[in-house]
């Protein structure tokens, strides 16, 4: 039996701005086992970053507010933890990598000091020992230890992102959340960084939530996938479920949008329209306006989540239809 590390139940997160409520995350549930990688896929504004920040309790508040739900980590509801407990959990148990490495590196500290400071903050070790561990951490991400004394600006984008990974992994967290960690990088560098992350993760049996909009990256790294649309998980399953049997019209649409290196298509099949405004979500299905298989009922009420095969969840009326042999 796999050991459950994280369980999110019915999480709802709002931003309240000027009398408007941005419904950023709506009733999201996720489970993650130890050592597993979950991909969170969705377009800009779908609510991926908000979800990640909620887990770490790092939402900007105000305007951010967790309206409902629970986030159970190692059996404990993080939403009920004190700020002090939360500070200990961040960095020690859960780390996050942000999209832009520069936002998480301090420009006036050497990269080595930044890693060793992180280690000292969370572990009772001497300065000499933390320096030794920091050099080790640098080398584990393929940066020679003698560059310990250099500053972030002396490093290229890919190297900076690797330093960020070294910092995030320095304290052996149980859960790593990476928000678009390679989106700003070139593909050959992306390949290096992903390879490194996956190896370190395997070595330490870390669980990983990987936020990305790139289904290619998902295919190469994830065990489970959640497709996020307008703050909801519209489809959830194993990598095989999502890639072999995509069942939500949005997921199917996403695959039709991307040009394929191994197949020639004359024309792409875009999903028409745009994501609905999260301050003004429709009564019915959030995808209704853009859906090519919509029915009348979709406009009137929100579809429930249907389990189309064991562990494969789809929020769509059609999904049920198909099962009953439409």
């Amino acid at each position: 039996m796999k050991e459950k590390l994280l369980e999110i139940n019915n999480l709802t997160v709002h931003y309240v701005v000027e009398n408007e409520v941005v419904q950023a995350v709506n009733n999201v549930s996720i489970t993650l086992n130890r050592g597993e990688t979950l991909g969170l896929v969705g377009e800009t504004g779908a609510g991926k970053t908000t979800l990640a920040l909620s887990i770490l309790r790092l939402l900007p508040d105000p305007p951010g507010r967790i309206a409902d739900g629970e986030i159970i980590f190692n059996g404990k509801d993080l939403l009920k933890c004190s700020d002090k407990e939360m500070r200990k959990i961040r960095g020690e148990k859960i780390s996050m990598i942000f999209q832009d490495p520069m936002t998480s590196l301090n420009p006036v500290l050497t990269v080595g000091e930044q890693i060793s400071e992180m280690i000292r903050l969370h572990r009772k070790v001497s300065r000499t020992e933390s320096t030794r561990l920091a050099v080790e951490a640098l080398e584990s991400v393929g940066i020679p230890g003698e560059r310990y004394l250099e500053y972030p600006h002396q490093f290229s984008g890919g190297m900076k992102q690797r330093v960020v990974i070294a910092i995030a992994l320095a304290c052996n967290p149980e859960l790593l959340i990476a928000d678009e960690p390679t989106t700003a990088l070139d593909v050959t560098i992306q390949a290096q960084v992903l390879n490194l992350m996956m190896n370190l993760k395997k070595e330490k049996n870390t669980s990983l939530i990987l936020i990305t909009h790139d289904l290619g990256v998902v295919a190469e790294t994830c065990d489970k996938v959640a497709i996020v649309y307008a703050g909801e998980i519209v489809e959830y399953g194993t990598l095989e479920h999502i890639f072999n049997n995509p069942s939500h019209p949005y997921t199917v649409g996403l695959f039709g949008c991307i040009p394929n290196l191994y197949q020639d298509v004359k024309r792409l099949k875009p999903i028409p329209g745009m994501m609905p405004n999260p301050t003004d979500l429709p009564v019915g299905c959030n995808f209704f306006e853009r859906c090519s298989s919509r029915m009348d009922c979709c406009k009137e009420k929100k579809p429930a989540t249907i389990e189309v095969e064991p562990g494969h969840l789809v929020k769509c009326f059609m999904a049920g239809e198909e099962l009953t042999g439409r």
Partner: protein
Amino acid sequence: MSVLLEVQNLKKYFNTPKGVLHAVDGVSFKLERGKTLGIVGESGCGKSTLGRTIIHLLDSTEGKILFEGKDITHPTKKELKILRREMQMIFQDPYSSLNPRMTVERIIAEPLLIYKQYDSKEETYKRVRELMDIVGISPRFADSYPHELDGGRRQRVGIARALALEPKLIVCDEPVSALDVSIQAQILNLMQDLQEEFGLTYIFITHDMSVVKHISDNILVMYMGIPFEFAESKELFKKHYHPYTKALLSAVPIPSIKYKKKPILIKGEISSPINPQPGCRFALRCPYKQDVCLQQDNPLVELSPNHFVSCARAREVNDV
């Protein structure tokens, strides 16, 4: 088929405090009317500089640019004015390239007004409406400002503005890179439709291999200012001769679990091409490097029909 644009040994150098930066270092190609040339390569390899030099937003350092058979490398003021309407550019970030204080309608009208295309305001704005219709922006956005539009619509405005003067060549610099895939597909389809309808010729700059394969007839792979490989799009994805192209393509994550492939991991990263040493600029990262690679510069050689490679060991490595 007639050649619209020809570039011969084009170079663009920048003087920097650290030395001379070879941003574009000897690029040659021919581009036929109505076709699309894709230019790919990693950040800093010189794609944008090449595009900007071709349309004279930058002065070239060396080499020749021929447009419709005419040498336009050093145009006179009058020639430049004509060129400015025949060659247009679409940018990655339509936001920073659209005047934030102008309405959509005004932005699209701007080139028409500058070139005094029509005698009356009515005619001008009739044409603006027509352009909005062509690129699929509803008239209700005519009075909106760029910040009120989403990325996809902003890019449509950029495209409408580029189309206004009926150009022959459009340099598209990462036009879909900032867009979500569902919107990206809408814009790519639009660009293909416009090409067909108006016989446009595109230079399409991107770092996305799947996009470039989809949209291009021919592809030029660049590395540190140097053209490394040139071939027809289909051909290039079947056969890639340059070790860098091989690594680049193998690193592209494929959105499918049927093709399991291992990326060729190359060490290090692209460095800045300041005062480069002679020899292959990829050599230090290349798994096939030998002494010969550093001894001389390698011109593009036609390894198979219409497929050019710049690599001293291309024949050996590929067994051709």
